[in-house]
């Protein structure tokens, strides 16, 4: 059992007040807070070890390089990669997906080929494919979900024609909370000969990831959503795929030799994909975030989030006019609850809750197609992490009741 009070003391920002009220932070799907160990690691890096990497032979550079590469090895272990060379550091999950689009897909897909995504993707897993499709004459196809927020699995096989060269889908939806049947999706796509990219931005922070078990080809996520610093994303790719891919951005470190006007050759993967000075401090200190998660254990993280989610769903059900988007089946959902209150605008809910110290996210949640599916302008979203408490859930629901009253009056009038 996690000692949540002890855990909360590790996160300085959690004892902050918002608008004079104790902060209840329920926007964890947007970004999570950082434990002391990560904050101190950053502080220490700039006080003790700051240096550019990979290039110089002096002691600071060696140390910084080692710190940076240690995180690579750690990430590899964390997600069960075959080796550290399968880990590419990017800015965020978004860039990881763009990298695959511009490097792997631009090289391997040709006009007429198709890419399959789902209707529940975050924009990060839609727009890069749309941009590429427009440029290369590819076709984007969409696997829809039903009103419960579950993928229509029975439509999958007919969509997976032989023209589909890539299936890119999210493991966990950042809006619906749906935990998609990732292994089955991968298996069925691979059976049809499609490559598979898994957007794990909402999965890696919450579930144990084992890329070998998944069987996919690429997997993307962001450090900032799992206790790590902003500026750090991960792309995992199968070694043989990364090796064969052309580089993404050009510049220092990604080359073996540079000749003018031409004749330049590339470094090995993953360095081939890391042009210029990366977010060295961010990557080096992401290590401490992984340490923290491992010390808790991802099973325990998940168990605790499931508890909070169940409590919240139970309480929210009693709020008049509460409308949930996504399944109520606890075994199929993560710690994300998107909702509306009848007659209330989501943005009003967000602002009022904020004024009461409760931080939720509102709007289109970077998923316009989901908004369109339900015919709404926006939603409010509460998302939990292991450091949230049952009392916070209760306060959130109470405050939501208060919002309802405040907004209810003019709503009736109108």
């Amino acid at each position, binding site marked *: 059992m996690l000692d949540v009070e002890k855990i909360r003391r590790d996160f300085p920002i959690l004892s902050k007040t918002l608008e004079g009220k104790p902060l209840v932070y329920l926007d964890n799907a947007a970004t999570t807070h950082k434990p002391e160990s990560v904050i101190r690691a950053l502080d220490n890096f700039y006080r003790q070890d700051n240096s550019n990497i990979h290039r110089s032979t002096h002691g600071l550079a060696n140390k910084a390089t080692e710190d940076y590469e240690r995180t690579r090895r750690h990430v590899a272990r964390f997600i069960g990669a075959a080796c550290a060379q399968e880990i590419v550091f990017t800015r965020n999950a978004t860039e990881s997906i763009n990298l695959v689009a511009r490097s792997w897909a631009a090289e391997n897909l040709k006009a007429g080929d198709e890419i399959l995504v789902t209707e529940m993707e975050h924009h990060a897993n839609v727009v890069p494919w749309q941009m590429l499709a427009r440029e290369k004459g590819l076709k984007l196809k969409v696997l829809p979900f039903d009103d419960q927020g579950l993928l229509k699995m029975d439509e999958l096989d007919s969509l997976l024609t032989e023209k589909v060269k890539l299936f890119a889908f999210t493991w966990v939806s950042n809006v619906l909370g749906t935990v998609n049947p990732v292994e089955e999706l991968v298996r069925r796509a691979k059976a049809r000969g499609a490559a598979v990219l898994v957007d794990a931005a909402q999965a890696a922070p919450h579930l144990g990831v084992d890329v070998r078990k998944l069987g996919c080809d690429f997997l993307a996520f962001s450090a900032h959503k799992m206790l790590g610093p902003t500026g750090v994303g991960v792309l995992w790719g199968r070694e043989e795929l990364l090796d064969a891919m052309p580089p993404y951005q050009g510049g220092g470190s990604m080359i073996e030799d540079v000749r003018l006007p031409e004749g330049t050759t590339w470094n090995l993967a993953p360095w081939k994909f890391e042009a210029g000075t990366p977010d060295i401090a961010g990557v080096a200190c992401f290590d401490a975030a992984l340490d923290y998660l491992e010390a808790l254990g991802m099973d325990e993280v998940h168990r605790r989030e499931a508890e909070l989610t169940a409590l919240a769903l139970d309480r929210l059900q009693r709020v008049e006019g509460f409308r949930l988007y996504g399944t109520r089946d606890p075994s199929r959902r993560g710690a994300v609850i998107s909702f509306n209150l009848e007659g209330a*605008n989501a*943005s009003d809910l967000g602002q009022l809750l904020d004024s009461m110290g409760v931080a939720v996210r509102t709007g289109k949640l970077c998923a316009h197609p989901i908004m369109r599916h339900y015919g709404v302008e926006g939603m409010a979203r509460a998302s939990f992490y292991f450091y949230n408490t049952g009392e916070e859930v209760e306060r959130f629901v109470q405050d939501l009741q208060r919002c309802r009253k405040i907004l209810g009056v*003019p709503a009736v009038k109108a």
Partner: protein
Amino acid sequence: MTEALPPKLKAMVEELNSVDDLTDKYEILIEIGGRLEEIPEEAKTEANLVRGCQSVVHVYGGLQDGKMAFRGHADAMIVNGLLTLLVEGLSGLTPREVLAVSPDFIKETGVVKALTPSRVNGFYNIYERVKALALAASNAGGK
């Protein structure tokens, strides 16, 4: 700072400033917005839409007898209150007077923390639209 504000705007701002708690302020804003006259559905055009707000906001206006007359609507109540500050607070002024009003007063009320042109913050975009309308009117001959 509220000294320099036009009287109707000043009255609303003082109402907001009369309470400390942000929830209370929002309640006042909702009340202020509730007083705003509805606009006809035909006015909810693409041209009148203010981009870059999280909620759907329409604003329009022009010269009437040498003074600006603004109207508008937002589908969220708090934003509608912010909109009312500008629509009601600046209607009846000359274009030049409208242009002389700095948006900084809103920061002091505490209901908007920062004047940045980002999605988060409807106010700045609404303010820019109102200013543009006044500028257009002024260029068209109003003072």
